[in-house]
């Protein structure tokens, strides 16, 4: 995980691309990767803003959230990550949903 295809997948997803129009997409990609790696138990530590802080004012809907989940699943599938392993990462990210949507 961590190739250029992550960036493309999210930036080209017509369902959520509008949310990334006025942000530094490279920073978003780097912080996303950091966050996922930290949650997956890697040596990385996350250095970005809190989930609430970084999603404040976007009024993200559950549909927006699910779109990113699908992009993450597709990225992991492209890297041949086994589904049980994918689900373990998703299980660690899922509790953050409440801090991301409706902010």
């Amino acid at each position, binding site marked *: 995980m961590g190739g250029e295809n992550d960036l493309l997948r999210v930036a080209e997803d017509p369902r959520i691309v509008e949310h990334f129009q006025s942000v530094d997409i490279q920073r978003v990609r780097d912080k996303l990767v950091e966050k996922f790696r930290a949650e997956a138990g890697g040596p990385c530590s996350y250095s970005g803003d809190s989930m609430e802080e970084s999603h404040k004012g976007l009024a993200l809907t*559950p*549909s927006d959230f*699910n779109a990113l*989940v*699908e992009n993450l699943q597709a990225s992991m599938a492209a890297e041949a990550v086994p589904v049980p392993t994918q689900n373990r990462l998703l299980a660690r990210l899922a509790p953050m949903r*409440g801090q991301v*949507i409706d902010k």
Partner: protein
Amino acid sequence: MRRLRALLLAACCAPLLAHAEAGRLLATGGATSIEGTAGGGITPWAVLTGYGERGEWDGDLFATRVETGDYRLDVAGVAFAYDNRVELSFARQSFDLGTLARYLSLPENSLSQDIFGHQGTVVRRPDL
């Protein structure tokens, strides 16, 4: 009675509006039950038809044939769900009694019923 060309023991669900209103994740629409509600095929589950998330609507059409050799059940119906909160469904079941009607001298060789269904969320966590 309208003849259905469904596969033996097969249930097929056709999402009505798959792309415009499809905020939910794969498989969270369940499988349409033989009564028309979203569920596990035989019984309703705590899932709603289609893939509509909060503020969205979706639905499906289905046709099912269950054939045991002695009896045949044909079901066809439609279901709609809105806001990831409420689902309305309609199904027409037609049960063919086969040879039993003759042996027992029953007045009809099939039984039919229309089923109107409603599934809804009673309590929802504020963040869902």
